[in-house]
């Protein structure tokens, strides 16, 4: 009797161990296979933004103009140097800080310390939406925008902690105290609510481009459907060298930064650039 119980327990233990081992091996194998870099991020329309840092490097004033346009359009209060209360939808930091995970050593002179526009990356795999207890923020299936419903936000700030890019701000104070002349076209927020960039979804609904894109005159920022093979964003990404912020975290951000310069390439290797010109006409 004792002997058979012992045998049974041994067998059960081994079976459980085997099952656990098999499933973990399977999981490891599938995560390895997921790294298909040319696969579309998601089905249907997927809005993405491409910021050309070479063009911005020559035009620091444009950075300020983009920030100003966005914050005026969306009634974002300006708290000046008050870092604690600051509300940021789009803001600038120097290039090395923005991309510190790249561990640049001797950095190219034209990018060194350059103000780089930062905003919500509208990730394909957003960590902020998963922690929201009230579904006040979610990833919109129709175009991938990470939306916010300020009616529902209870100000728990889980999303602020979850976002690895610092894209979310909390209203510690009533923003109306700072905003002298809010625009009627867009609501302000109230005290105790988190806010962030929404890719100007209210402007997109009216057929307009995002506010920061609109002030750009020379394609410094390009916006569009990355799943459409003929879209401008897609064309640029297939021809130029683009990086994303903290890609190792697996959030799959949808804001891309162009860091190369076709003219520099032309000087170094003219033949290679001729090829690019023939294919896409974008050299």
């Amino acid at each position: 009797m004792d002997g058979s119980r012992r045998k049974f327990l041994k067998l059960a233990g081994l079976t459980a161990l085997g099952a656990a081992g098999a499933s973990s091996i399977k999981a490891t194998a599938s995560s390895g296979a997921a790294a298909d870099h040319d696969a579309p991020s998601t089905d249907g329309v997927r809005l993405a933004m491409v910021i050309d840092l070479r063009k911005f490097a020559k035009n620091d004033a444009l950075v300020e103009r983009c920030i100003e346009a966005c914050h005026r359009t969306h009634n974002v209060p300006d708290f000046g140097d008050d870092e604690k209360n600051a509300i940021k939808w789009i803001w600038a930091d120097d290039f090395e800080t923005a991309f510190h995970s790249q561990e640049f050593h001797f950095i190219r002179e034209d990018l060194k310390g350059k103000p780089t526009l930062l905003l919500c990356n509208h990730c394909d795999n957003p960590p902020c939406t998963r922690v929201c207890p009230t579904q006040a923020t979610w990833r919109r299936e129709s175009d991938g925008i990470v939306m916010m419903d300020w009616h529902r936000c209870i100000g728990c700030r889980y999303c602020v902690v979850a976002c690895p890019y610092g894209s979310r701000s909390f209203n510690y104070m009533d923003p109306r105290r700072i905003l002298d002349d809010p625009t009627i076209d867009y609501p302000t927020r109230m005290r105790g609510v988190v806010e962030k960039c929404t890719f100007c979804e209210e402007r997109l609904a009216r057929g307009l481009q995002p506010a920061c894109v609109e002030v750009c005159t020379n394609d410094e920022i390009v916006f569009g459907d990355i799943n459409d093979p003929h879209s401008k964003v897609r064309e640029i990404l297939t021809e130029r060298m683009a990086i994303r912020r903290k890609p190792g975290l697996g959030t799959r951000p949808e804001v891309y930064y162009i860091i190369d310069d076709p003219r520099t390439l032309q000087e170094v290797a003219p033949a290679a650039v001729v090829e690019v010109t023939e294919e896409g006409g974008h050299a």
Partner: protein
Amino acid sequence: MYDAGKIIVGIVVFLVLATSPLWFNAMTAEGPDVPELKSPPNGATECVEARDTMRKNHIDLLDRWRDDVVRLGRRDYVSATTGKVYDMSLSRTCMDCHSNKTEFCDACHNFMVVDPYCWDCHVEPKEAN
């Protein structure tokens, strides 16, 4: 019963005194100052739905608009009364006609002692002082 006369007279006096505000109002006052709404200054004569519906259920309509716009991304509202299409927007559509928040929204809300928090975030049109 001792002093029945005094007690009954006392009760009657008490009842008359206790209910005197009601009598007084019934005889003198012409009722509460029910707010009167003015027609929209831009001359509009019809709302997105019938007047009675709007008077009773505007909060339900606004609630639905909010969810449609923010959560479902739908912005066009087809009126059940006229079939016309409206942009579901408090600041744009509603306030386009009812442009005076103090006279339109606040007049009734104050009378009914309700305090909706729409305007904590949404921006009302500027009013001429």
